[in-house]
């Protein structure tokens, strides 16, 4: 029994010109202790997926799909009912973590206020809080400071502690390293892994556009493109033997230390992603795909599920396999 199961989730954005199909069908599951990386270009729906698991509100619109966490079916379409699960069962470190704290409240007050809403007294948890702050290398003094007195990185770590304080089953980390320097990035990412290793959280979804970062920490990777799942597999599988042309392109475009322009020229993914207001029929990647054939024009690719839960959504890959 997986810890988290997402089945055919669709979430659209309402605009005056119609629905933008930002997340148009994704199914996957997460095992106990798994860190799953969610990768893709901007606008591919990865953030939409992450956000809709926690806080689905207008202009986001729930269309269909089921989310099961530890045998509970999550009412993600119901803003009020989800409150029972948020924070305690499923929690988020948002992209905007550096601005996520009310600037005019002391950090301690923010903790006690939010814990009080779950019926927990701030004074009871002080030792635990101390331990958690140590985990992210923050001094205890931060509790008596206002968020404005902290650096961006410190605020982010305060948010990390707060978000995980109730030991949620699932933690979603949304692009939390994109604004950080390499050294800080490495430290922060190590802390995330630490959260899992110390069983603070039971599973984690790390949303990022940086695949090389996922290689360092993730157990599995899910690649999205234009609102759809493209490929999912273990980190090794995805990086060493990508099956979808898009994944292959993506990995091939990454420069690495040791690669120089004069010696080996890297190429990006040609073309642009389709508009999601009226996405094309068939495979959404076909316009940029060198292997596309008639079938890709007509039918959206079937998501083949291989052994060990490997998923690929590509006609070409399917045929090769067959």
């Amino acid at each position: 029994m997986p810890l988290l199961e997402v089945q055919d989730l669709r979430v659209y954005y309402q605009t005056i010109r119609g629905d933008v199909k930002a997340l148009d069908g994704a199914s996957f599951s997460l095992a106990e202790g798994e860190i799953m990386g969610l990768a893709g270009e901007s606008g591919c729906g990865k953030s939409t997926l992450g956000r809709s698991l926690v806080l689905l509100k207008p202009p986001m619109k729930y269309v269909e799909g089921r989310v099961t966490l530890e045998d509970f079916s999550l009412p993600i379409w119901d803003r009020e009912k989800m409150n029972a699960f948020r924070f305690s069962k499923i929690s988020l470190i948002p992209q905007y973590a550096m601005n996520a704290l009310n600037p005019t409240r002391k950090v301690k007050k923010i903790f006690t206020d939010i814990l009080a809403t779950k019926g927990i007294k701030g004074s009871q948890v002080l030792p635990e809080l101390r331990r958690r702050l140590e985990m992210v290398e923050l001094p205890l003094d931060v509790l008596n400071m206002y968020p404005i007195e902290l650096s961006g990185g410190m605020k982010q770590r305060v948010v990390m502690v707060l978000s995980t304080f109730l030991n949620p089953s699932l933690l979603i980390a949304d692009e939390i390293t994109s604004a950080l320097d390499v050294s800080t990035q490495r430290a922060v990412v190590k802390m995330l892994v630490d959260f899992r290793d110390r069983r603070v959280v039971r599973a984690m979804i790390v949303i990022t556009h940086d695949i090389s970062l996922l290689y360092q920490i993730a157990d599995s990777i899910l690649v999205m493109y234009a609102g759809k799942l493209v490929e999912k597999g273990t980190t090794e599988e995805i990086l060493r033997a990508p099956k979808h042309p898009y994944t292959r392109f993506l990995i091939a475009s990454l420069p690495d230390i040791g690669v120089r322009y004069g010696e080996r020229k890297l190429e990006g993914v040609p073309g642009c992603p389709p508009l999601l207001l009226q996405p094309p029929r068939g495979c959404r990647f076909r316009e940029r795909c060198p292997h596309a054939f008639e079938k890709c024009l007509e039918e959206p690719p079937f998501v083949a599920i291989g052994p060990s839960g490997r998923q690929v959504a590509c006609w070409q890959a399917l045929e090769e396999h067959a």
Partner: protein
Amino acid sequence: MLELERVTKIYRLGVLGRKALKAVDSVSFTVARGQVISLIGESGSGKTTIGRMILRLTPVTFGRILFQGADISKFHGLALKNYYRRVQGVFQDPFSSYNPIFKADRIFNIVQREFFPHLTKGEWRERVANALCSVGLEPGEVLGKYPHQLSGGQLQRLLIARAMLLEIQFLVADEILSMLDASTRIDVLNLLAELKRIRDLAVLFITHDLSLAYYISDEAIIIYRGYIVEQGAIEKVFVSPLHPYTRMLLAAVPRLDRKWGPAEVGLKAQEGKIVGGCPYHDRCLHAEKEETCKHLKPSLVFVDDRHSVACHPMGRLAKGVSHGTSEARGTSVA
């Protein structure tokens, strides 16, 4: 072609500038024609300030910046215009580089208005089309559109095309890739390399991403809290890094070919005042061994003719240290 001589930038904060913040401290380096130099550092290292000073967006506090031998702070009117004809910049945020209420190609109109008022509309249109082609854009696809209708990659290319319309010899590329997707990033980077090759363009590539810097540069300058800590040919700096800071940065880069080792990487220290001594000593893993690091600011010394470092223990390892070279490089000993 472009030379920085002990350039220092002090920001004054507060009423009447009572608080001073040294963002850049006696930085000297030169850029030759057709050379790509990477300026690498964390946020707050002063790398963007250096780029802005070269573009005259921020005045220099002490020191000089020379372009073909002339002090750029002395340029006014026509001389300044001529400077901008040769030296241009592209910035980090493609979306903020465009005035959101106007069409994206308005950036070209401004260039025409200021630099080529004598050209006819047809002539100008042809030039724009050529420039667009040279950056790999289809004029029909990008002209007449609003910035929000274009992708980040397209917008950055448009900005490079804008610079290409001038007789540009030097480009300041300030974190131009950090807001782009990985898939478009490499294309823009290839474009820069291409232009360097074809037009003999010199580029100051400001970045915090070491793999990108390695991919394109000839030389690297590692900057920490306003000081150059290591400088040299790119393969020297990356393959045999000397400064503990450079090593730490390299160890922290997430790579696709190997997983992170157990190397200790600390969080960025709180920015206190540099009291004297090595600016890096509070984060440095070697610092405790050396009392000198606490008190004496290391100067940039040559390790070999294409590689220099500002670090006491590492500097001593250097072959052929001479005071002459150190001073010629313009680094101060506090």
